[in-house]
């Protein structure tokens, strides 16, 4: 009780200085995992197979490898500046040595922060849109797209209205609800598994095709950037880095599993023709002894939770980034509310699903910038200028 009170106070005043950590390493892992698991689950098998054919599953594993590198880098950067978020430490790293919030630092960090802000806003919008497209296409065919998107965004807004600690707990609770059914379905779809579809292991691939396959799967791993913000609120313990990596390995495992299932059941040629391959996988899966003949409705029900955690987390990050940037942390909720119409309008931007996929590709490149290039630049500059602490200040997790 006491701690809750304290945390809410410090969250509001985090502008002034140090933030009290409230997120346990395990919650940090679930934040990463549930942000990653979203619309990517439905499209990844097609995206990977149309680039890398039978070798799709290798690209997924390689994509995970790059994502691990990025996560280690970001987590280390967070350790270097304990209890500082992305806005704060980029200002310190790029600023003069005298003050933490020097004018120079604020000016130089502005492009980084604005790109990150734009990225999180547009990604939130595109994920809500993809969600809408699937729902309108597959289940609620007469419901207006706008209503589906608005429902998802308003639900996310409710979570944005709460403190960071609540967000972390919601993610922790929802993660098993997302992971277990998805694994269950992937497992059952192996009933029509055909090994020949996965062979040859290495089809005659141009190395360029293969690398673009890796890039596409790397896009599916995006979402881990959120810990540049949440790491400021996470306890720094010896487990933090390891659990962050586990947070990535959960989606990596699910993705690999689903891609293998998709390629082995459909073959890569058929997979390339399917708009939502995982949904089709669910359609051909018959679970013996289950009451539901059509599994896809049940699957979509679970998938709503996966999309919700993704949109809500990114939405949260957008509102946090902006309020930290303008220095009005106590008005974060109002900024969140103000972003709602903006996100809604962006989500209606793409003309159709195909345009939506194009937009997702562009935002994927921006995500590379935010999740890979920015941390790399900041880490290098911080090392060169000897900024931040040298010894990682491990903390005790209180009351857990």
């Amino acid at each position: 009780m006491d701690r809750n009170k304290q945390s809410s106070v410090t969250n509001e005043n985090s502008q002034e200085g140090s933030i009290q950590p409230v997120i346990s390493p395990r919650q940090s892992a679930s934040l990463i995992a549930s942000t990653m698991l979203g619309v990517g689950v439905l499209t990844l098998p097609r995206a990977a197979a149309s680039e890398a054919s039978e070798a799709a599953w290798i690209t997924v594993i390689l994509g995970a490898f790059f994502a691990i590198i990025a996560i280690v880098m970001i987590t280390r950067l967070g350790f270097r500046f304990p209890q500082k978020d992305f806005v704060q430490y980029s200002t310190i790293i790029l600023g003069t040595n005298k003050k933490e919030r020097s004018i120079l630092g604020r000016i130089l960090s502005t492009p980084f922060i604005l790109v990150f802000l734009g990225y999180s806003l547009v990604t939130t919008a595109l994920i809500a849109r993809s969600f809408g497209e699937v729902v309108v296409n597959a289940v609620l065919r007469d419901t207006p797209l706008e209503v589906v998107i608005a429902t998802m965004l308003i639900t996310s807004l409710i979570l944005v209205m709460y403190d960071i600690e609540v967000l972390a707990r919601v993610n922790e609770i929802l993660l098993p609800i997302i992971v277990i059914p998805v694994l269950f379905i992937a497992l059952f779809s192996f009933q029509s598994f055909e090994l020949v579809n996965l062979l040859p292991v290495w089809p005659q691939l141009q190395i360029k095709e293969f690398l673009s396959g890796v890039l596409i799967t790397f896009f599916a791993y995006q979402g881990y950037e959120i810990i540049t913000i949440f790491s400021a609120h996470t306890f720094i313990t010896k487990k933090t880095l390891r659990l962050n990596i586990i947070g990535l390995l959960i989606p990596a495992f699910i993705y690999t599993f689903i891609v293998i299932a998709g390629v082995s059941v459909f073959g890569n040629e058929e997979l390339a023709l399917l708009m939502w391959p995982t949904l089709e996988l669910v359609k051909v899966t018959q679970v013996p002894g289950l009451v539901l003949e059509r599994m896809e409705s049940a699957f979509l029900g679970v998938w709503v939770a996966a999309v919700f955690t993704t949109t809500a987390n990114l939405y949260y990050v957008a509102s946090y980034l902006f309020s930290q940037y303008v220095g009005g942390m106590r008005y974060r909720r109002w900024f969140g509310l103000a972003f709602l119409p903006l996100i809604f309008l962006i989500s209606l931007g793409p003309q159709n699903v195909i345009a939506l996929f194009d937009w997702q590709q562009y935002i994927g490149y921006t995500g590379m910038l935010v999740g890979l290039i920015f941390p790399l630049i900041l880490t290098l500059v911080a090392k060169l200028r000897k900024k931040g602490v040298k010894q990682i200040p491990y903390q005790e997790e209180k009351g857990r």
Partner: protein
Amino acid sequence: MKKKRITLSVLILLMLLLTTTGCWDRRELEERISAIAISIDRAEPSEEGQPMYLVSIQIPIPVRIAGGAEAQGEGGADAVKVVSSTGFTVAHAFGNIQKRMNQQLFMGHTRVIAVSKEIAREGVKELIDGFRRDPAIRRLLWFIVVEGEAVELLRSDPKIEQIPTVFIMSLMENGAKSGMIPDITLGRFYISVSNPSLQPILNYVRASKEDISWIGVALFDNQKMIGELTAKESWFLLHLRNENTGGNLLIFPDRGDQREHMVIRPMQIDTSNKIQIVDGKVKAHYEVNMQANIIEKNFDIDLSDSKNIEKLARVTEEALEEEAKKLIDLLQKKYKIDSIKLGQQIKSYHYSDWQKMNWKEEFPKADISVSYRVEFRRIGMQMR
């Protein structure tokens, strides 16, 4: 304090109202018309000479189904209505059918899609495009080719089931379960059409006024039907594809005397193949391991002697090898089509050779041999 509490509870009650609104696009079951089977035939060309499709759907009539409130219907053809309409494409024809319907057409319950042999021979690619796009169409429904007019299948009334489509459905499902009928659903057909190393097959059905029967398999070259196999040939095809056991086989142990025969029931099939590729020449050997039961014989041989059973197994092997060889010759010489999934094996296990060759041209030249290994497991309740 008390006032506050009252305001709060009123607010909560008002918010509860939001949960009572129901669905946006709610549609009751009786507010739509379910097409449980679809058939597609060739129709007379339009006035401008454009080819037209005749699309028919079978619709169950809820009040006529026995056991309903009035219970006056006796089921069968009375319980369903077959509606046909022509159109330039399938979707166009559906639009024309919709004009004659008082409720919205719904394809989510469709269990059978039948095309006539004539249409199948012209190619089914443009037919399945619409089905692929419609999220309501199941991938697990039965896609079949009908000898003659496909609409006959919808009009036919076998009387055993209340709704004729249910009869077709269970005929296929049970046949696939027992191993007689290849388990080829719409989704499987999609896959084999899009995979360049596979050639599709579909179930081939005959329908008359009161009878529906499975008569074999239609062979496809990509999306065009090019021929058909009889039931017996289809079973050997299933053996070679390592998919199913096929139905009961009639064996003549004494070649000279056609009156001596026995019936065996294959219980389990396990086919393995060895492929050798030398200078682009494919040499493939199939080995079919079959476990079978003897269910009937009409000649004198003492089966209580295990040596005799062994002898019968050898004779059976020879007979089966001969039949399988005939099928392979038929595929290689007459149809020139690799329906035994050999191409897929070559692509998966000999990829570099696969890239060098044009399999469509190589297949008729390939050297394919078959050997059977039969083990009789059971001879029934009689000793001799």
